[in-house]
C-alpha cells in the first residue's frame, strides 16, 4: 500500500519534461466566462480575459477569440492573479552562507536549481512568482533573486528582468545562533547577542560608506591605485543609494524598530520586515516609513521570539496602512497560500479583496514588480490562476496556472500523465543501472532525501 501511495504521489508531483518544454514565453490565450478576482478592481462576473503575447490585452465580456489564441472555457470557475511568495528558499542548492556575519557578496542567483520539484508543486498551488532569499544565519545575508516559476525553462529564464535587486538581513535568535550548538572544534561566530547584531550592521554600513568614499576619491583623481572592487560592500553601497531592497528577517518588534532607526540613520528604507509576527506593536512606525510587512498567517508562538504574535497581526497592520503580504518560507506552505490569505478574513475581518492582495498585488509591490504582475489588469503579464471554486474555500484547488499566458500547470494533464510516469518509472527501474545491488550496497535513504525549507528551522548551522 505504502509503495502504491508513494508511486502516485511521486508521479503526480513530477511532470515529464516534454509537457512543459514546449511552453514558450508569451502565450496567447482567451479565458472565457470566469468569475475574475482582479486583486485590483474588484471581482467581475462572467468575464473574459484575453492574453496576447504574454500580456493581458483585454478584460471584458464576450471577447472574440483571435485565431492564434488558445481558448479556455472557465464557466463556473474562479480566476485570480498568480500568487507571489515574498519569502521562499525554493530552488536553491544552498540557502545559508553562515560562515561570516556579513555575506552580502553571495548571490542566490548563483545556486538556483530550475529542476527543483518544489517549483512544480508550487505551481500546482498557484504560485507564479517568488522572492528567493538567503537564509537567516547572519545579520547581513546574501543577495536575493526575484523569479517567475517557469518550470521546464533554463535557469536564466527564471529571474524577472528589471526586478529591483534585494538582499536579506536578519535579526534575533537565528543570527546570534541561540538554537544551534557549535560542532566540536567550531568557534561560535560573532555576534552572539542582539546588541552584537546591531553592531555588525552599523559597522558594515560604515565600511560601505568608506568604500564609496574611496571609489569617489579615485574618480576625483585623489588616489593613484584603483580601489579593490569589493563584492561584499558593493551591494551595501547600493542599499545606501536606494538601489537595492532590504528584506529583513525578524520576530521581535523592538529589533525591527531598531533596524528601521539604523536605516533612518544611514538614510535608506527597509523594503520589508520579514515574518514580523508582532509588528502590530509598531504598526504606525512601519507604515510611516513605507516599509512593508511580509508575515505568516499563523505560527503564533512557535518559538520564543514569536511568543507575542497574535492572529490579528495582519489585520492590525493592514488597518494601520502597512503594506502586508503573506509568505510561506516553506516549500510545503507555499502550496496553499490561498488558505493563509483566507485566514486574514477570518481574524479581524480583512475584506476579501484586501486579503487576496496580500498574496498577489501587495507582495508584487514589496518586490517592485507590481508594474508587471500581481493583479489582473490590462497591460500586466498574464500570470493567471484558474480555480475550481472560490480560492478561499478549503475545497479549492488550482486547475490551471499560467505565467505570461503559457500554461505551466494543468491539473487535468497532470492527472492524465501520472499513468505515463508510472510506466516510465517501471521501465527505468528495470534497467541495470537502476537495479538495487544483488547484495551489499549502501543503506537506502529512509525517508527520501528532501531539503527542508520549512520556516527558519531550515536555517540551521549547516550550509543548506
Amino acid at each position, binding site marked *: 500500500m505504502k*509503495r502504491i501511495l*508513494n508511486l502516485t504521489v*511521486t*508521479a503526480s508531483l*513530477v511532470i515529464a519534461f516534454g509537457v512543459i518544454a514546449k511552453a514558450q514565453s508569451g502565450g496567447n490565450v482567451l479565458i472565457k466566462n470566469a468569475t475574475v478576482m482582479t486583486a485590483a478592481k474588484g471581482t467581475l462576473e462572467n468575464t473574459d480575459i484575453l492574453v496576447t503575447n504574454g500580456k493581458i490585452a483585454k478584460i471584458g465580456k464576450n471577447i472574440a477569440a483571435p485565431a492564434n489564441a488558445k481558448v479556455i472555457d472557465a464557466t463556473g470557475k474562479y480566476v485570480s492573479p498568480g500568487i507571489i511568495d515574498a519569502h521562499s528558499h525554493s530552488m536553491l*542548492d*544552498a*540557502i*545559508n*552562507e*553562515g*560562515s*561570516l556575519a556579513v*555575506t552580502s*557578496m*553571495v*548571490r*542566490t542567483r*548563483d*545556486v538556483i536549481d530550475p*529542476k527543483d*520539484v518544489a517549483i512544480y508543486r508550487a505551481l500546482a498551488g498557484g504560485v507564479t512568482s517568488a522572492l528567493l532569499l*538567503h537564509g537567516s544565519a547572519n545579520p547581513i545575508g*546574501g543577495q536575493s533573486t526575484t523569479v517567475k516559476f517557469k518550470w521546464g525553462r*533554463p*535557469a*536564466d529564464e527564471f529571474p524577472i528582468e528589471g526586478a529591483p535587486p534585494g538582499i536579506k538581513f536578519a535579526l534575533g535568535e537565528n543570527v546570534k545562533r541561540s538554537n544551534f550548538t557549535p*560542532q566540536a572544534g567550531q568557534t561560535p561566530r560573532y555576534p552572539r547577542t542582539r546588541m552584537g547584531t546591531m553592531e555588525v550592521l552599523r559597522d558594515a554600513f560604515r565600511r560601505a560608506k568608506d568604500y564609496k568614499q574611496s571609489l569617489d576619491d579615485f574618480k576625483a583623481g585623489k588616489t*593613484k*591605485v*584603483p580601489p*579593490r*572592487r569589493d*563584492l*561584499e560592500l558593493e551591494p551595501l553601497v547600493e542599499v545606501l543609494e536606494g538601489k537595492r531592497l532590504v528584506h529583513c528577517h525578524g520576530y521581535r518588534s523592538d529589533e525591527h524598530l531598531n533596524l528601521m532607526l539604523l536605516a533612518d540613520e544611514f538614510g535608506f528604507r527597509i523594503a520589508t520586515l520579514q515574518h514580523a509576527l508582532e509588528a502590530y506593536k509598531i504598526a504606525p512606525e512601519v507604515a510611516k516609513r513605507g516599509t512593508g510587512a511580509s508575515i505568516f498567517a499563523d505560527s503564533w508562538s512557535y518559538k520564543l521570539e514569536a511568543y507575542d504574535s497574535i492572529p490579528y497581526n495582519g489585520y492590525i497592520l493592514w488597518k494601520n496602512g502597512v503594506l502586508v503580504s503573506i509568505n510561506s518560507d516553506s516549500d510545503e506552505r507555499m502550496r496553499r497560500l490561498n488558505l493563509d490569505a483566507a485566514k486574514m478574513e477570518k481574524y479581524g475581518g480583512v475584506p476579501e479583496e484586501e486579503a487576496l492582495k496580500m498574496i498577489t498585488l501587495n507582495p508584487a509591490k514589496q518586490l517592485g514588480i507590481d508594474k508587471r504582475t500581481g493583479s489582473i489588469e490590462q497591460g500586466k503579464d498574464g500570470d493567471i490562476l484558474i480555480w475550481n471554486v472560490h480560492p478561499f474555500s478549503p475545497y479549492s484547488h488550482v486547475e490551471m496556472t499560467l505565467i505570461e499566458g503559457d500554461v505551466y500547470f494543468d491539473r487535468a494533464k497532470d492527472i492524465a500523465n501520472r499513468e505515463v*510516469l508510472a510506466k*516510465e*518509472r517501471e521501465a*527505468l*527501474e528495470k*534497467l*541495470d*543501472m*537502476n537495479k*538495487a*545491488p*544483488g*547484495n*551489499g*550496497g*549502501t*543503506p*537506502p*535513504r*529512509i*525517508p*527520501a532525501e528532501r531539503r527542508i525549507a520549512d520556516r527558519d528551522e531550515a536555517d540551521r548551522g*549547516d*550550509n*543548506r
Partner: protein
Amino acid sequence: MKLKLFLYAFAAMSLFGALANGQSLAITNARIVTVSGSVIEKGTVVVRDGLILTIGADAKTPADAQVIDATGLTVYPGFIDALSSAGLQARTTTPAPGGQGGGQQAAQQAAAQAAPSNSNYGFGIRPEVSAVDDLRGGDTQFDAIRNAGFTSAVTVGRTGIFNGRSAIINLAGDSVSAMLIKEPYAEHISFTTVAGYPGSLLGTFSALRQMLLDARRLEDWQKAYAANPKGMKRPDDDKSLEALIPLLNREMPVVFNANTENEIVRALDLAKEFNLKAIIAGGQEAGKVAERLKSQNVPVLLSLNFPKRTAAANPEADPENLSTLRFRAEVPKTAARLSQAGVKFAFQSGGLTAMNDFFVNAGKSVENGLTKDAAIRAMTLSSAEILDVSDRLGSIETGKIANLTIVKNDVFATDRFVPYTVVDGKLFEQKEPVRAPVGGRGPGGQRGGGANPGAAAPAAAMPAVANVAGTYNITIDVPGQVVSGTLVLTQQGDVINGTMTTQLGVTQIRNGRAFPDGFAFAAAVEFGGATIDIAVKATVTGNILNGTIDSPQGAVPITGTKLP
C-alpha cells in the same frame, strides 16, 4: 568473476620492461589504427629513441630492432586518461559536494592533512598548488593503469575548490621530469566548500569571483608599478592571486568539475563572466547543454564512471526519484549527444577504480549511438587536441612520442586484453592470465572434485584443501527461531560453488573457497523483502559441519551433517 579479476592482477605483476632507450622496436604483422589516417590492416610500426619512426604495410624492420610479432593484435595510439589522479598519493579524501551537511567537517579534515603553506588563502582556495609537486618517479606505480591500456594521463588532486594545476604525464619514467609532457596544463576547479568561508555553494561562487577580480587588479597594479614605482604603493606579491592571472589571460585553461546540468551551466556562466578558456570535466549531463557548450566552444572531459544504484533494496525506503532513475539511464547516451552536436570531448576515468570499466563503458557509449571510431578518438587524438598536445600524442604518426597500446580482441569487449604498451619507446609486456574455468552454477554444475588442469597455476600454489563437496543438512540457530535446510557444494580445486536452500529460498553461494579444514563463502539471502549479505565460515570434520554465519544483524551458529 572475482577470481578472474584476481588472476588479472596476478598476471599484471609479472610484467617487465624490456627496452633500453636508443634501441629500436618493431611491431610487426599488426593491425594499425593510426587514428589520424586510415587503418592499416597488416603492417609494422617502428619506434626508435622514444619516437615513432615509421609506420606502414611495408615498413622495414631495422636490423637491430627488437621485434614484436603482433599477429592478430591491434596497435592503437597510447590511450590517454584525460583526467585522473595518477601518481598522486591519496593524501586527502574528496570532501562532500557543496552544500551538503558534513561538508564542513570533511573540509576541516582535508585542511588538517594538507601540506603547510604561507599563502594568504586557506586550504582549498590556493590555485598555486601543483600536482607535479606530489608526483614521484618510477614505472611500477602505474602498472595497473598501464596494463589497462593507458600510456598518458592528466593528473591533478581532487580536494578543495581550486584542485590546483594539473600535469600531463606519461605513465612511465624513472623521474618526474622524464614523465612530464606538459606542466602546468590547467587550473582545476570544483564547486565545493572549504573550512570557514566559503562554507556553502553560495560562497563558493562569490569567493571565486572576488579572487578573480583581485587577480586582475593585482596584474594591472603590478604592471603599473613595474613601469613607474615612484609614488605608488607597492603591490603585494601574492602567489595565490598570481596563479590566476594566466587564467584571466586565457593562457591556461580552467577545468571545471561539473557533472550535472546545473553545475555545467554555472561553470559556463562563470567562464563567460571572466572570459575563461573553460573545459568541463565529468560532464555526465553535458548532452543536455550540448548547444551551449558548442556555442561557447567548451570541450568536455567526459567521465566514464557511469552512475549506478548503490543503495540496497529496502521495502521501507521511498522509491527513488524519477529524476535519479532518468539520470542514470541517460548518462551512457551523453557521448553520442556531444558527438552529434559537434562538441569536442575526450574520455576520462572519473575516479573509476576498476580501469577495465573505462572500456566497458566506452563500449556502452558505442551501444548508445557513438561510432567506434569516435570512441577511439575520444581516448586518443581528441584527448590530445583538447589537451593541446596533439603535435606529440594521440595518433600513430612519424615523429610523435612512441606511446602505443597493443590490444588483443575487440577493445570494447570484455575479453579485451593488452599484452603490450609502449611508453616513450619503452616496451611493457603483460602476460595474459590463464582464464579460470567458469564454475558450475546451478544444476548441472557437478563436474567432480578433481583438479582442473586449466586452474593449475593458482591451485598448485595452495596447500591441499579438504574435499568439502557434497550435500549437507544444515541448521542455523537464529535467536528465537531455528532455520533448517540443505547446502549443496561442488568443488574444483579450492573453488567451491553451490546452493543453500532454506525456508528463505534458494541462494547461490559466492566467493566460495575450500581450506585444509573447511570452507567459506558469501551469499545474499532475501529476508523480509530485504537482501541480507551473509558470510559463512565452517570447518568440516568427518561428516560434521560446524561454523558461523556473519551478517550485518550479527553472527549466528550453523551446524550440519554431510549426507553419505
